[in-house]
């Protein structure tokens, strides 16, 4: 952190005030770059916290039998791993990127609501700390899964109200962040930056922000009902009082399905930003990318019960949710075809950001295939709640969202720090990650198909071999990520020592405004709007 301070101090804009000194700069900052940095650093820390929990899970599953942890703690780990990764790592990382990049991409001096921006970051920290504090409470951390299904979640110990309030805080933080993104994009675009000229990353975040505003209150409502069921004798989800536990699942997944797209849409945006630069071609089908994103976002609201095919839906419900879910394959397919077409007949080079992006396209497609398989309701009667689904959503999250976050890190680090990262170690990081992530998650397809349920701390002997392989992959993947931390710190401290240009990547200034400002980007950029808007995709 001190290194970052030093860097910014060295390079602050000469005709404008620079950052405050010391810790107050970070506490009270309203600068989008500072806040973006804090989001990114925080999410990287959380990535390792959540990752450690994942390694505890994989260590326990290395062999049949219970070796390390108590089943209750195991359940807490699966629950907390998911909550930390979703709300602490992936979502904040994308908010960090949004903070850093959206103003620079649309030629704005800062986010529209800078004080709220600061508040939403610190609210996030408070929310996650409150959530983490439950680990030390009587009865342990929440252990009913990140989905908090009642009635099981009502058996949580003292942690329950704290977890609910943590969710409220995270929700408020997300909503404020989303409002800020929307206000910025609608009000602060430079003259000439029409909506259909915005970089895809900005577009996907705009749509994501609307999703967030629509869904976070729903989630807050759902967990509040849990709270009143537990403490105030309501019975929203208790059949004995006229409620229905399945009602909770409907409400939760009305939030939960768009929520997973909150994590994937900005991923699409970053991929659409990086691939054209390294293919030295304009993005193929810009307009269809925008429409496909909109279509995916719309569909995300009307498919929620595909998470619940086995709860006992009527046939008409099963069929409707099956057909609606299958439709998602079409816009998603369009995106994958567009990325392939963008690469086609380009002049590709394979720096680390491009490698991660290509791996994303391939491995996300695998996750998409299993998604298509599970969209077929009768098949979901086999796949549901088995390791097959675990493999599916990890393929759409780890080698997709997380890989793209890594790609984004490598892609923009030179712009953020003014230094070049070490390409050799970057590529080593990529290859270790790409190989180990498949060792980690691919065998989980086999386990699920062979009948291993998810969320179990111990398993039958026939599942032993693939679990061991998966655990080995997990430790390889986990420890490989330390390379990324090394590279980030090394780059902040000067990296290769190579002087980076404003453009950094060959021809990048044709693709985005951020490559027209100096590297590192001055503390304040675009105090006056840019004169030329890159219109390369037209």
């Amino acid at each position, binding site marked *: 952190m001190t290194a970052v301070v030093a860097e910014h101090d060295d390079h602050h804009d000469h005709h404008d005030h620079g950052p405050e000194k010391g810790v107050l700069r970070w506490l009270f900052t309203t600068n989008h770059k500072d806040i973006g940095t804090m989001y990114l650093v925080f999410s990287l820390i959380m990535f390792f916290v959540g990752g450690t929990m994942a390694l505890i899970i994989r260590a326990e599953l290395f062999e*049949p*039998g*219970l070796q390390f942890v108590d*089943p*209750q703690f195991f*359940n807490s780990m699966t629950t907390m791993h998911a909550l930390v990764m979703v709300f602490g790592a992936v979502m904040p990382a994308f908010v960090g990127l949004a903070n850093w990049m959206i103003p620079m991409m649309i030629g704005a001096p800062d986010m529209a609501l800078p004080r709220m921006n600061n508040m939403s970051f610190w609210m996030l920290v408070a929310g996650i700390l409150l959530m983490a504090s439950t680990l030390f409470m009587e*009865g*342990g951390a929440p*252990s*009913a899964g990140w989905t908090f*299904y009642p*009635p*099981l979640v009502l*058996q949580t*110990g003292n942690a329950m109200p704290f977890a609910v309030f943590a969710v409220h805080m995270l929700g408020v933080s997300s909503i404020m962040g989303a409002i800020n993104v929307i206000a910025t994009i609608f009000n602060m675009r430079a003259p000439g930056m029409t909506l259909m000229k915005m970089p895809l990353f900005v577009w996907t975040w705009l749509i994501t922000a609307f999703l967030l505003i629509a869904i976070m209150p729903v989630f807050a409502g759902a967990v509040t009902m849990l709270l009143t069921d537990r403490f105030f004798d309501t019975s929203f989800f208790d059949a004995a009082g006229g409620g229905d536990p*399945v009602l909770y699942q409907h409400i939760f997944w009305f939030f939960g399905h768009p929520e997973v797209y909150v994590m994937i849409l900005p991923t699409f945006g970053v991929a659409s930003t990086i691939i054209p630069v390294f293919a030295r*071609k304009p993005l*193929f089908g*810009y307009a*269809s990318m925008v429409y496909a994103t909109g279509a995916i976002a719309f569909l995300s609201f009307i498919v929620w019960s595909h998470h619940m095919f*086995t*709860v*006992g839906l009527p046939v008409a419900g099963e069929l409707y949710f*099956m*057909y609606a879910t*299958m439709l998602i394959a*079409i816009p998603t*397919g*369009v995106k*994958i*075809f567009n990325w*392939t*077409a*963008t*690469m*086609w*007949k380009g*002049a*590709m080079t*394979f720096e680390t950001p491009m490698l991660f992006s290509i791996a994303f396209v391939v491995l996300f*497609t695998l996750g998409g*295939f299993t998604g298509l398989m599970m969209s*077929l*309701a*009768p*098949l979901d*009667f*086999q796949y549901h*709640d088995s390791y097959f689904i675990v493999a599916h959503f990890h393929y759409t999250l780890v080698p997709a969202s997380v890989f793209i976050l890594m790609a984004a890190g490598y892609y923009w680090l030179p712009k953020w720090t003014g230094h070049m990262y070490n390409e050799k170690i970057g590529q080593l990081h990529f290859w270790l990650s790409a190989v180990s992530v498949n060792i980690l998650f691919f065998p989980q397809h*086999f386990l699920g*198909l*062979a*009948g291993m*349920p*998810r*969320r179990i701390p*111990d398993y039958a*002997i*026939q599942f032993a071999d*693939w679990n061991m392989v998966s655990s080995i992959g997990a430790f390889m993947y986990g420890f490989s990520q330390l390379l990324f931390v090394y590279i980030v710190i090394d780059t902040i401290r000067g990296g290769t020592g190579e002087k980076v240009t404003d453009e950094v990547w060959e021809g990048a200034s044709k693709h985005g405004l951020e490559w027209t400002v100096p590297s590192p980007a001055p503390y304040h950029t675009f105090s006056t709007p840019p004169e030329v808007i890159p219109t390369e995709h037209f």
Partner: protein
Amino acid sequence: MKKTKQLFACLVLMAMGLGTAHAAYTLNLMKGVTQLSNEIYDLHMLVLWICVFIGVAVFGTMFYSIFHHRKSKGHVAEQFHENTTVEIIWTIIPTVILVALAIPATYAVIDLDQVVEPEMSIKVTGKQWYWDYEYLGNGIHFESHLDEASEKVHRTSGMDPRSVPNYLLNVDNPLVVPTKKKIRFLFTAADVIHSWWVPELGWKKDANPGFVNDAWTYIEKPGTYRGQCTELCGRDHGFMPIVVIAMEQEQYDAWVKATLDKQNQAADLSKQTRASLMAKGESVYLKNCVSCHQIDGKGISGWYPALSGSEKVTGNIDQLIGFIQAGTSKMPSFKKLPANDLAQLITYIRNSADLGNNVNDEFQPCEMLSLDDLDDMFPDIEDAGQLCKEFGEVKPVKVSAESSAGSE
């Protein structure tokens, strides 16, 4: 071009590897033993192959491009960025594929729902953490817990799970069903949501507290089919397996008769030795208590109280019996335990070195019952309560012989 061919061949080989199931470690979905599960399997294979072919086409194109359209080979980037025709084509082709998939999937959904005209019905109740099976119509009703060997091994460190046959997939009382009969299952739960999954039957169904779900099966082949609870249901979610034994009608009828005979036997109130009480008490404990109070009786701090050294356990016996039978807000009532089991259990928890208790006493089944209970249980015997009190036992064998003689 050569490289692309190699890559293609490699992908096809990998796909074929996916398609073939191996006995040693399974890679693919199992076929199952019902027509429904085969329908699901076929659909699974269809969509898997479609995905493989799409994957080969898309990744093939992409890798061709990666190998050839690179700057290091001197390729110059073209600048096209739109082509309405191809965009329409690659929207329409997936749509056609989806329609082709939707048709068989729709049939399968409808087939899954055909819970009509069953020949028999079984009510399945999920409980933390075992299954409760009730055969509607013939009165068979029993609990199905994880088997004792698995229970001991997973709760004791340093024991080898590989030494237990069907580790974690075995139960004390399997669900026995006839082959070639349409069976309707009714699912519900007593506490939290559970889910009943036997992969060979082709489906799982959630058991929701307060509601009833249904599903059906028609098993063609006799055999033993194993599964597990698949909805996270708390601490021992991983330890409530399902075993279904399908047998020919004749054998099934014999099983029904034997089970009913056993179930309807008069209570066994014979005197038992200390050793027998302790050994059987451990079994009762493993089935009913161990999930919460743990194998060492230490409970789980913050969740479940310890039995070791607990006043409630080692103190007044009548209060202990009352406590066990009544339950608390957290502990279910164990009124279901017959006097026999209760006597064994109480002797065990008060005296087991494993649990760290040593009151040095023993209890016989007769002592678990009040005089009124006994007279209710043995209406044919005069003074059953008195007999029990004096001799410490009532012999059920004698009872049934006398009662049948009396009725003639």
